[in-house]
């Protein structure tokens, strides 16, 4: 629609997303494998088992390769003097504007997987909403947190 925000999130996010995608794929394979075993035991039609097999493969491709890639490609943000702009989404692209004057506070957050890769998630809260920038490099996240709270403090208008 209009020009994209410029900054990308860390490339290591891709690795983290692929790992969590693999974990969920593992569960899908366990369940799917269970069904196929049942199918062999009880002589289900071959078609059903083929369908389950295809589903598992498609899921693995989506969760490990396609979705993390698209998600990473799409994820952009920009922190400007007076506002923050976010862009995300794979099939539905969502753009959000958060004026600095509306920012109440900024948090950073780090799960075990993110910590292993030295990444953090930044959460920006307004009076009514919370927005999240996933997987920024630790230093970058900290810098961002500080600059947003500095800029947010300068501006004061009524709520």
């Amino acid at each position, binding site marked *: 629609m209009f020009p994209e925000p410029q900054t990308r999130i860390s490339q290591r996010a891709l690795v983290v997303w692929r790992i969590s995608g693999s974990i969920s794929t593992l569960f899908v394979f366990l369940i799917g494998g269970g069904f196929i075993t049942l199918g062999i035991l009880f002589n289900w039609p071959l078609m059903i088992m083929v369908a389950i097999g295809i589903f598992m493969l498609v899921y693995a491709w989506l969760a490990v390769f396609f979705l993390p890639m698209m998600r990473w490609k799409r994820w952009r943000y920009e922190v400007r003097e*007076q506002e923050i702009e976010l862009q995300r989404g794979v099939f539905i692209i969502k753009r959000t504007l958060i004026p600095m004057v509306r920012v109440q506070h900024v948090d950073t957050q780090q799960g075990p997987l993110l910590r292993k890769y030295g990444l953090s998630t930044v959460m920006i809260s307004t009076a*009514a*909403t919370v927005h999240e920038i996933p997987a920024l490099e630790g230093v970058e996240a900290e810098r961002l947190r500080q600059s947003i709270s500095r800029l947010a403090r300068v501006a004061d208008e009524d709520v």
Partner: protein
Amino acid sequence: MSSPKRMHPIAALLNILQHLKELFIPILLLLFFGNRGESEGMLYLIAVGVGLVLFLVSGFLSWYRFTYRVEENELRIEHGLLVRKKRYIPFERIQSLDVSEGILQRPFGLVKVKVETAAGSGNGEAEAVLTAIKKAEANAIHDLIVSAKRGSNPNEVEAFPDESVIYKMTMPDLLLLASTSGGVGVILSANLAIVFQFEEFIPYERVFQEMEQFISNGIMFISFVVFLGFFFVWLLAVIGTMLKYANFTLRKVEDDFIITRGLFEKRQFTIPLKRIQAIRISENIVRQPLGMATVYVESAGGSSSNEESSKVLFLPIIKRHNITQLLEPYLEDYEWNSKLSPAPPQALVRYLIRGALVSLPVIVVMVYLFQIWGLLSLGLLAVTSLWAYLQFKAAGWSLEQNMVTLRYRLIIKNTVYMRKNNVQSLSVKQSLFQKKKRLATVEAVVKSGQGGSGGKVLDLHEKDIAIIYNWYSRENSTVRME
């Protein structure tokens, strides 16, 4: 005002009643299920009796220990039997006093005052509650708070505050409000469901031939009873609404809007002008054809779980075209007359598809189950298509210098007026399908109570969406348009 005061003794009684209400079921259980054998039964009764006495004493003592006073621009409350608690609330922090008159308070000229601050105490309770104090006292506290907030001497409170009545509910309005509220939807759909059932199981022609047999089957009788049941529920809802909203009055006193309502239990709400985040005009399906609408204001703050303090019923029922004229003088920051632009024609298809997605699965199942008779459920497709068309017609937007208006319909048609400064964040969304048709979705969020509310319009033209987006952006938007 500075010496510690106790509440009216009625407060002790109210306190005890409140606790009894909470313990009602445990006591019942104890009385009915604990009663085994003569001697043990006596023991239980004694235990319950002792418990009750303890209750009364503790209720009395906690009333005795509860004092409040006004000191150094703070409301200071001290209470607690074993653990003595003090709570000092600075006047500047107090956002509103919610005054209500219960049945027990009224004969003594007392009121219950709830003090609300911005900090929701987490569990959704008001910061402080004075269960029963004299009306004059409540007014005195209110005046003190108002003058303290203005930073002036309490003695300089204007003798005649600038007050005007904006709206007063009349009896016909009250009747209309009660009879066209959500309850009608329930009864209509119940009727429809019954009619539909007839159509699906027994086609009408055959029904009329076999009427006698039909009645003896009792289906007619049962559905009649069900209908009566729904009617009764609806009637109760109507009466409930009438009691709740009787004498509804909206006044503006200086910079506050004050709402009073209720027949047996009088309630009073204060909405400071500054805390209003958005104005919402809702037209439900029954009221819209009558040209009537309901106006809500979204207000910031208030306790978290309290729906009533975030989305406040402002004008319960009013002619749609009178709203502007009525509110314009009091809400000067809002532009009421800006013309809304509709969704582009290519959006209609998407609205229709969304509607069909709701009805098609039902139709497929119906045809599968009832074969040819299942085709009757195609009527459902007509209903959802009409609904989708109405949604399409409702979609609209307009911009002013400092204000955005969004109009949309889920079931109720909503028009939301938001000032730019009150919009907390603005998002636009575009799916691949939308992109092909050059459409996009816009959503604006305002603060409401402790959470968010706002407006979301699907499938506007992406050119229009870009205009809204750039309007909200605070950095050289014109350059970014190119």
